[in-house]
């Protein structure tokens, strides 16, 4: 690629980055692939982390995030802007995850997968403890029924209001709250049966 072309591409990306989601979606729907690429770049982290919360391992999360963006691209012409683009993307990603978790039990990442263990922070032993707790919580969340898992992930980690979650998963606010209630109740029950959890992270009575 020539220097002139490279500069033009960089300028184009820079101008796309200044556009809001709706405009990028409009351009993507009109066939402008670079506009969709900009959307991927903008939302990749939230979509990936949402998927990771569902499946608990990096490889599956990356695959699911990719699948979510592929579906988004196929459906971008149908995005009318009634909801925000992030809500629309969440909806797609949640559906992709729900389909996957009902078809396949998630494979959980071992602590070894976090290869940067000890690279940050002053106390590696504390970090190790935190990672272990996190792994136990993820394993417990993975045992929740899919809809309860969706309610918990979207509420606790994505910090979305119940009404927004209802729009994403399709259902009423009441149903979302009920799923959230049962998710917390079951999470407590699962962790209470884990002997390691009580000793290391504060006991939850069975």
């Amino acid at each position, binding site marked *: 690629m020539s220097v002139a072309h490279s500069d033009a591409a960089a300028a184009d990306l820079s101008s796309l980055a200044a556009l809001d989601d709706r405009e990028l979606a409009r351009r993507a729907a009109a066939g402008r*692939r670079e506009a969709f690429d900009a959307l991927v770049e903008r939302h990749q982290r939230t979509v990936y982390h949402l998927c990771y919360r569902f499946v608990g391992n990096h490889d599956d999360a990356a695959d699911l995030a990719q699948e979510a963006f592929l579906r988004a691209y196929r459906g971008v012409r149908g995005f009318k802007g009634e909801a925000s683009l992030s809500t629309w993307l969440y909806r797609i990603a949640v559906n992709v995850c729900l389909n996957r978790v009902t078809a396949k039990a998630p494979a959980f990442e071992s602590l070894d997968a976090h290869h940067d263990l000890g690279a940050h922070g002053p106390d590696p032993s504390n970090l190790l403890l935190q990672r272990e707790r996190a792994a136990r919580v993820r394993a417990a969340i993975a045992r929740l029924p899919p809809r309860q898992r969706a309610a918990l992930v979207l509420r606790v980690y994505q910090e979305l209001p119940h009404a927004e979650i209802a729009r994403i998963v399709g259902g009423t606010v009441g149903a979302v709250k009920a799923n959230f209630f049962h998710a*917390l109740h079951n999470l*407590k029950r699962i962790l209470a049966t884990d002997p390691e959890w009580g000793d290391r992270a504060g006991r*939850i009575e069975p």
Partner: protein
Amino acid sequence: MNHLSEDALVDAVEGSAEGAARAAIDAHLVSCARCRAAVADLRAALAAAAHGDSFEPSPLFWTHFPERVARALDAERRRVPHAQAVRRLRWMVPVAAALLVVVGLGPRLMRSTDSPSRDAAATAQRDIVRPDPPLAELGGDNDPLWGLVEAMAEEVDWDVAGETVFSIPPGTADLAVGRLSDDEQLELARLLRAELGASEQ
């Protein structure tokens, strides 16, 4: 005593109720040990959930992920013509099969239905199970039906068809027609004649 609903318990945990609803929840919790315990349990579970942090991939992953999606989109785009060929075949296959039935059986069915005899259907049935005459008798350069089949067959990408859609064992169409009732066979002959008449116009 009535206890708080699941909705209300979630509101109590999150502190999201307002006004009269919040006052009612608070008043109930003062007097109900069971609901207080339930709220405490849910709060503990919520605090536990907060331990479940996500995994942060390397910066390189974020750099490459948009390219990965772009490559997948490109690959999908390359597959689209293949998928379109498959969709074309999906309607062409039954049409081609029907035409093969017409070439093989049509003349005999027509002969049967043209007969005023009440035994026409039975005759057709007997004809169907009789061995087919050699192909040369049915088709050829001057046979318009065979020509139509040939024209359709030319549009089929047989490599694609073989790997994706179908393989019809020899005699399948004959077998299918043989299983039809007399009335169904007569109706099939009528429909095929109408279809061929339309396609020849």
